[in-house]
């Protein structure tokens, strides 16, 4: 295949970036999108340039490291697919592709297609856990979890934290990411004691990071490579409201520990 690529180049955070155009040839339809970029990078290096920086690690769609906007779509045109699992056979010979980083205030660009998603970790820090010290747990089968509930938790826990939801949202909202974690832990019996604190503190952190609000566009779920459902957001909103009503302590007072 031959392709024309317009790739976002930006030396560092704060710089004004721009698209740079490259043509690549002899791309195998069986190669993945990132393997196509590998070929581009080898060529750039050969010609004395600096390769395009992009994040990736597992290349199996599970670590959530990769992510770029391809022709306006987070992770490209194939549903339920991360960029690393997208294959070139989904494109046509001669296609023109625009490749950009996730764009969101809370995800500053570090270089080219690489962004800083540290905000996601800080949302988890605020309450995305069940406090269970190593060695303190009762026998695993003493906690019964019905299959339906376990499946529901697993559906939400499948989130890979890639940030496509934020990139796709017109408000750059992190609702789907946050809601997935609140749902995963909130439906399980083990997650009940901290459920209110979790909802309050995670939502507060999400706002503090500068993510936008949700105005029900649904783009997030549309691009989510793991099919996290919008119902998680409805659930989070319920948990959050309930937690605010019964709040007895100031926000973020009971994190960590």
């Amino acid at each position: 295949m031959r392709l024309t690529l317009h790739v976002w180049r930006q030396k560092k955070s704060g710089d004004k970036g721009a698209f740079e155009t490259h043509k690549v040839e002899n791309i195998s339809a069986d190669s993945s999108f990132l393997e196509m970029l590998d070929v581009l990078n080898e060529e750039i290096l050969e010609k004395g340039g600096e390769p395009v920086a992009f994040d990736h690690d597992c290349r199996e769609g599970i670590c959530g490291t990769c992510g770029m906007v391809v022709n306006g779509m987070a992770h490209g045109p194939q549903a339920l697919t991360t960029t690393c699992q997208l294959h070139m056979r989904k494109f046509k010979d001669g296609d023109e592709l625009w490749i950009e980083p996730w764009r969101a205030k809370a995800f500053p660009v570090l270089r080219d297609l690489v962004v800083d998603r540290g905000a996601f970790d800080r949302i988890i820090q605020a309450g995305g856990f069940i406090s269970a010290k190593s060695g303190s747990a009762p026998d695993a089968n003493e906690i019964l979890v019905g299959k339906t509930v376990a499946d529901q938790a697993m559906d939400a826990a499948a989130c890979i934290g890639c940030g496509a939801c934020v990139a796709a949202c017109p408000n750059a909202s992190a609702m789907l990411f946050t809601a997935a974690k609140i749902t995963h832990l909130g439906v399980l019996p083990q997650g009940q004691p901290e459920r209110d604190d979790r909802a309050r503190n995670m939502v507060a952190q999400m706002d503090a990071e500068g993510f936008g609000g949700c105005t029900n566009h649904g783009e997030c779920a549309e691009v989510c490579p793991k099919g996290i459902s919008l119902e998680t957001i409805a659930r989070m909103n319920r948990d959050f409201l309930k937690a605010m009503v019964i709040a007895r302590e100031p926000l973020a007072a009971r994190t960590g520990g």
Partner: protein
Amino acid sequence: MELRDNAPSGPIETAWDRHRFDIKLVNPANKRKFEVIVVGTGLAGAAAAATFGELGYRVRSFCYQDSPRRAHSIAAQGGINAAKNYSGDGDSIYRLFYDTVKGGDYRSRERNVYRLAQVSVNIIDQAVAQGVPFAREYGGLLDNRSFGGAQVSRTFYARGQTGQQLLLGAYQALERQIGAGTVTMHPRTEMLELIVVDGQARGIVTRDMVTGKIEAHLAHAVVLATGGYGNLFYLSTNAKGCNVTAGWRAHRKGAFFANPCYTQIHPTCIPVSGEHQSKLTLMSESLRNDGRVWVPKNKDDVGKKPGQIAKEDRDYYLERKYPAFGNLVPRDIASRNAKEVCDAGRGVGPGGLGVYLDFADAIERLGQKAIEERYGNLFEMYERITDEDPYQVPMRIYPAVHYTMGGLWVDYNLMSNLPGLFVLGEANFSDHGANRLGASALMQGLADGYFVAPYTIGNYLWTERTDQKPVTADHPEVKKALAEVEERTQRFLSINGKRSPDSFHRELGKLMWEKCGMARNEAGLKEAQARIPALRAEFWENLRVPGSGADLNQSLEKAGRVADFLELAELFATDALHRRESCGGHFREESQTPEGEALRDDDSFRYVAAWEFNGVGKAPVLHKEDLEFEHVKLTQRSYK
């Protein structure tokens, strides 16, 4: 130097309990006086850092990814073993211990393995308490499956994403400690050197992968949980960033590297599709529970569509050769048999490097729905990569490098021969001997991190507290380590040759796969020994790393990793050459039974080979730890 395992003597069943009672504890008020560095945030590192934080130590945690949650453990699919005997099918701690020693072809340390089997049960409790959504039965109890050659159902799983869910559990525990201020997290930070003062590991030198800042971090002990080095072969199932740098830098500073040649080649991976290939994708071996492996009986049929080959013209070679275990033989055996049929010209798909894994019978027996339930996400992944629908046509699979049993040598306390350097998870030479059983790596990583190191490190810190002098940034050893990293970085940037780090990596990987891969022989290993130094010399003359060291530079990161692989490769070949026996994943063609199975030589090789660094290109020094077997009887492994 005599290598001492420091394992307690006496009855094996109570060894760990007695050891925990005998070793020193640090009282809670004193814990915060100690600083611990943990490199790596996979299952082993995240579990350790979180637990150290909970205990009250001051912890600094490092990973090269942008978030600790992305460590390679995230990719594990199939499951985690534990001797819970929830299935009531005769499992026990002793059986898991026995299976693991036997599966490792009698090349692991009994006492470590026994402890691993013991604490396996605590891991499941811990994970469930954290909210890990393991598969459940309708009654709400945990579900188990049988996995990779085990005759009992002891594997816990969370769909095809067990590693992800276990890692998220450990990551969330870690984030909780970061929020509480006990752990400081340094993501996108690569360890490039170990700092050794007075013979003890006292810190590391890192490079900030965004700003390029090179910095020293000092502590009372250093824990490496930096994963395996399967990417030595370039193509493997490991994440692209997996590397040996942390372990190799420690090796150069005196830590012994044990059994480097023990590599696990996983039988069920998607075959290579072309030159562009950048990594290989594993299809969980749980698929072998329901899939049947076959190739055409006749060479002439390999070009035909699988549906056109009649049942009687198919060779279900694993079922034929190993009637008791069938498609569930251990990984090394399944892999070698695949290679054998492909070498005989009966392989299918591009280049004849593939065998079928066929679900047609299972679909007929159980219905498509049941198969979808079990393997839906794996089938989808397969289709996405190959463009073939495994519900309609059999999968094509081929072995690929997957896991490295070798690693830094550690004693029973998981401490290397360098005092103060602890090594956990896949990075150590571990409990798997010459071959790891499926679903046992997750178990070992979490056992090391949650339940072993937190005790043994306390013992070290308290015992050494009076001897350890404070080390500050102006200590000559610290300055030396910093200078080493600065110089190396500048050297990469200034060679200005013609070839990219990736091109060297690919070439090295191909050489390793061909000469040190699934089957090894003296001539091939000697050839590798001769060719590796030449490639390394070219690397240092003809490498091109564009850009600068002062910002995000992925070529520079790769160059550092490839440089270390080029040194490890030689040690790997040396180890494989010296071990003139076959055992587990190490198959020496010169040493096989009349039926072509791996033939051990217990009289000559019943030891751990721990290598001491002696300079680049110089012959390393071999230290042997003899292995004693009091409980498990050494037999020729047989899965017939």
